[in-house]
Each structure stands twice: as C-alpha cells, then as structure tokens.
C-alpha cells in the first residue's frame, strides 16, 4: 500500500473528518430542504388567485377613492376648506389605476433556477471552504501535535515527500467531497426548480456558466484547504491555522479597511482580501470612488476601478503559493523535537 493511499485512509479514519462531513451534509441538506419549503410552484390556479386578489384590491381602492371624492365634494358644498385634507380638486387626479395592482405582488416566492442558482453556488462554496479549512488544518496539525508526524518520518525519512503526499491526499479528498456534494447540491436545486419553482430558460449557455462558477468554487475550496494545511504545518498545530485566519480576517477586513479610509486612499478596498474573493465569484467587482463626484455640477459620474477574476487569481494564487513554499521550506529545514 502506498503512502498516498495510507494517508487517504488516515484522513477517512479521523473522527473530526467524519464529524465535519456529517455536519456539512446536514447543513447543506437543511438549507436545501428549507428552501424547498419556502418556494412554491406558480400554477395557473395560484396565478389566477393572485390576479383575483389584485383585482379585488383594485376595486377596493377605487371604491375608497370614490368615497373620498364624494366626502370632499360634500364638505366643499358645506363651504368647508378641503384642499388641506383631500388635496387639490378633491384628489380626483389620484384615481387608482389597474397597473398599480400588479398580480406579481400577490404571488408566493418561486425559485428560479436560471436567475438564482449562482447565489447558491456561492453558499455551497462558503460551506465547503469552511469544511476544507478545518479538515486541511487539523489533518496535519493533529499529526504534528500528537507526534504522529515524527512517527511517520521514522518510517519515511523524506520530509518533503511525506508533507507533499499528505497535502495531495487531503486535496484529493476535498476534491472528491466537493464534486460529489456539488453534484448533489445542483441536483437538489434542479429538483426544487422543477417541482417547486422554475427551470425555464435554462439553456446550454446557462449550464456552461454554472459549470464555470462551479469550477471557480472548487478552486477556492482547494486553495483554502491547501493554505490551512500549510499554516497548520508551519505552526505545527491546528490552532496556528485558525489563529492566522482570524488574524488575517481582522487585519484585512477591519484594520486595512479603517486605515485606507482614514488615510483617504483612493479605491482602498483593493487592499482588502475579501474584494478579491468577491471578484473571483462575481467574475469582476467594481470599486467606486464617490469622492471624485462634484455634486455642485449636478449628475455624478464617480471614478471606477474594476477588479477582475484574473486579478483575484493572481493575488490569491501568489498568496497561497507563498504560504505553501514557506511551509515546505520550513519542513525541510527545521528540527523535529
């Protein structure tokens, strides 16, 4: 049996891996189930019911308006001032129109696969990325803190090969879990769309776009898993990765955001990590500098800066590669005691 297969077995045997996988599946299933219940198929009967309610609302509004106008006319005939209470000409110009009572407003929520599944890919990616972070970090972190890594190195005294094999095993497992759960997730929302929503206008182009978003989500999951693995290996403890994640989160999302705002840096959000995560998912993310507006001259056309998914790939890729290189270099150089 090769070291790679052994590491896959070790990962699968870990209690935390199993527990997190169960929680992930339950969480995703819970979201899909809750969503299935909140979405309602718009059958002709439901549409007709909404139309009827809309018509009734319109008729009620017309009657209220007519009564109001009649009251106003009566008050005017008595010589009372009416303009303040009923408006000019007793509010005749405010007669309700049928288009003001759109039947859509009375329709229940219906999930539209074509328009909304993209958001659910992001939700899925977020949940699986969190799973990847915890599994990636704890897989190697626990090995270091329990002495398992030292034991393994007594058997396989090739440090880089051992760490690389462990990383390959955890990434393979994450890839497998992501692909299988991603397929189930897509199937679940397709079924929700089919039976309790809409799958209209889902062309091959939509599927292609969905697939590309899925690949981007998958890449993000693998990058998060690899970075968590590298951080835990650097600190030789799972907590190191968790601490680094919290630290980066606080520094990037709060510290840098505050600093660039106070310093008046234009497009300061380009220095914040989450901008690149958003651009990665949305294909591009627009940063707007409202201070460039001159409101005195009327309409404002603020300056814009576009962060593309290619920029994100560069920033996130270089950052991840740097952490991995340092982790492997440290593995090669540092004493194990």
């Amino acid at each position, binding site marked *: *049996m*090769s*070291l790679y*297969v*052994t590491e896959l*077995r*070790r990962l699968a*045997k*870990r*209690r935390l891996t199993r527990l997190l996988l169960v929680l992930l599946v339950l969480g995703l299933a819970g979201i899909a189930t809750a969503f299935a219940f909140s979405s309602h198929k718009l059958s002709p009967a439901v549409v007709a019911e909404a139309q009827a309610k809309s018509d009734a609302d319109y008729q009620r509004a017309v009657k209220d308006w007519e009564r109001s106008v009649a009251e106003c006319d009566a008050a005017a005939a008595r010589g009372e001032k009416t303009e303040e209470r009923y408006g000019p000409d007793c509010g005749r110009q405010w007669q309700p129109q049928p288009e003001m009572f759109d039947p859509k407003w009375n329709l229940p929520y219906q999930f539209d696969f074509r328009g909304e599944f993209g958001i659910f890919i992001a939700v899925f990616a977020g949940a699986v990325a969190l799973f990847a972070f915890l599994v990636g970090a704890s897989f190697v972190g*626990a*090995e270091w803190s*329990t*002495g*398992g890594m*030292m*034991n*393994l*190195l*007594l*058997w*396989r*005294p*090739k440090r880089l090969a051992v760490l690389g094999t462990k990383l390959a095993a955890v990434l393979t497992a994450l890839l497998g879990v992501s692909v299988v759960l991603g397929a189930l997730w897509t199937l679940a929302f397709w079924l929700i769309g089919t039976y309790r929503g809409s799958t209209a206008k889902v062309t091959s182009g939509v599927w292609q776009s969905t697939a590309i978003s899925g690949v981007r989500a998958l890449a993000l999951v693998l990058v998060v898993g690899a970075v968590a693995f590298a951080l835990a290996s650097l600190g030789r403890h799972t907590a190191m990765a968790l601490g680094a994640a919290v630290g980066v989160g606080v520094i990037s999302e709060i510290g840098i955001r505050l600093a660039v705002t106070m310093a008046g840096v234009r497009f300061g959000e380009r220095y914040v990590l989450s901008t690149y995560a958003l651009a990665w998912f949305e294909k591009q993310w627009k940063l707007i500098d409202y201070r460039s507006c001159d409101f005195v001259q009327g309409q404002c056309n603020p300056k814009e800066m576009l962060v593309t998914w290619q920029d994100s790939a560069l920033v996130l890729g270089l950052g991840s590669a740097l952490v991995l290189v340092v982790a492997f270099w440290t593995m090669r*150089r540092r*004493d*194990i*005691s």
Partner: protein
Amino acid sequence: MSAVLEIEGLRKTYRSRRRGVRHALDGFDMRVEAGQVHGFLGPNGSGKTTTLRTLLGLIRPNGGRMVILGHEVPHALPAVAGQVGAIVESPQFFPHFTARDTLSLLAGAGQLPGRRVDEVLELVGLRDRAGERVKTYSLGMKQRLAVASALLKNPKLLILDEPANGLDPGGIREMRTLMRDLSAAGMTVVLSSHILGEIQLICDSVTIISLGRRVAYGPVEQVLAEHSQSSVRIRLEAVTDLPQAADVLTRAGVRVAAEPDHLMLAGVDKPAAVSRLLAEHGLYVSELAPVAVDLESVFLELTATAPVPGQHRQVDQSTKVGEPGSGGTGGGWGA
C-alpha cells in the same frame, strides 16, 4: 565483529540570542556491534535523546559522522529506514485511533503486509486490547504499542528510548526477555534507559554520555572493572580504633573514607597488605571485604550525579570530559 552503528564526533549546537549557545552534543562518539544489546546511558539533559533524534534524521547535526548498517546517515537514511525500528522518548500516538489502526497505518506507510500487525500485537501482549482507542491505554500499554510499532518492520537495528517507562514489574521482565530473544535472533538493540539494574542485566555493552560527550564505553564487565577502583571495606575489633587506623592507612598512601562503624578504602591493590599494616600498629581487623561495584555506582561516579546531602543538583550539573574539575561542571545555556 562488524559495527551496526557508528557515531564519530557528533556535534549539535543550539543558539539563542537570549540564552546564548548550548552544545547539546559536543564531539560525541558511539559504536554498537552487530547482535548486541547496547545500553545508552546518561543523566537527564546529557544528550541521549538528541543523539537518537539526530541519528534518525529528526535533528540536523552541526558536525560529525554517523553510519547505520554501513550507510552514512542522514544522507542514506531513506535506504536504511526500513531496517531501523525506533521509539524516541515517550510514545505518542493519535488518541482516537485504535492500536490496530495505528499499526495498520504505519504498516501501510512502510508497505508491510497486514499480518505483521497481528504478529507484533501478539508479541507485545496487546492482542486482546488491539481494538480499543489509544486514549484509553495506560502509559505502560502505550509503551507496549510503541515497541510494537518499532518491531513492525522486523528491523536489523532496534532503537528504544526508555522502553520500560510505565511498565509494571511483569512488563519489565517481559521486555527484558523480549530484548534477549530479539538479540538472540540476530537483531541489534540500542536501549536508552535510567533503570541501570535492567541495563546491567540485559546489555552486552554500554555507552555513557554526559553533557554531550562520551565518558565511558565498552562491554559492561569491562566498564565495571575499569571503574571499580579496588574498593575495600574494613571493620576493626574495637570501633574506637577506627580514627587511628584511618591515620595509619592515610600515611601509607591509601585513600580512606571514614564511616561510623567501618572504613572504606580506595586504590588498594592487595587487601592482605592492609591487614598486615594495621596489625603492625596493634590494630586488628575483624572484617576485610572487597566491595563489588554495580553499574549504578559507576554511572553516578562517571557522571558526577550522585546525590549530595543538603545540595540540589541541577539538570545540567554533571561531568564533562576533557575539562579541568570535571566532577560537576555546570553546563546549560551560555556554557
């Protein structure tokens, strides 16, 4: 006899901006012959575990040469790792795995057949508890598991750091028998331990280390003989004559240590001469007995770690060979 393990001039230095320089290994030498059970002794902090970790590629040395089974390590460690079984310091395993899982994963990493797992579990007496999680094991059971993991490869060289730690008396005896059996089967065993009585019983040869340097080595009998110093205990018919006898012997060039009811003499080649000398001064001996030394007393003498009433010896206070005043040189950070 061919050497399975050779270490020459091994050095490992730790540098710290705050605490200065510490030489954990300072030109350490060691040689273990094939088929022997070799004891590796030293006080706490003397460099035993650093030596073993360096030998096994876990720590980078700053200098020196190490050879295992004819291969220079750490360069050739991947080539010989399959023939070296080792446990270093306290056994550490993933607490939520069973003993069988733990060994099975190691066997997988070493590309060994699964049946070997059952063989070593039987060998160390864990067969019936193999399905339980390691976190439920006692220290002694973890120690057995550690030995099992080291034996899994059926190695030519077995390195065990404190294998009897946490074992009950029966377990210690079983471990002793196991070491003997393994040695008889041709396996070379390096045993690091503080239970010197066990070492004396099990080992064919020993190396004693103190502050990173070798202070004694060779077959156990040879080390004992070299450091017995011909000690003799004498008692007189009248205890009140002991001070006078001590004076006579001291003037004759014998090193004398006075005890309440007897004298201990060192450096005595011929005990009969002592009896004659005292008789010439009207002092009559009632008991004259050569004192046999054991490994513990030799160890304490060589490493200068014998307890002294009223003093609290610090971890790095032991003998450093090759330096003046070697009886209790202070080491440690900044040394």
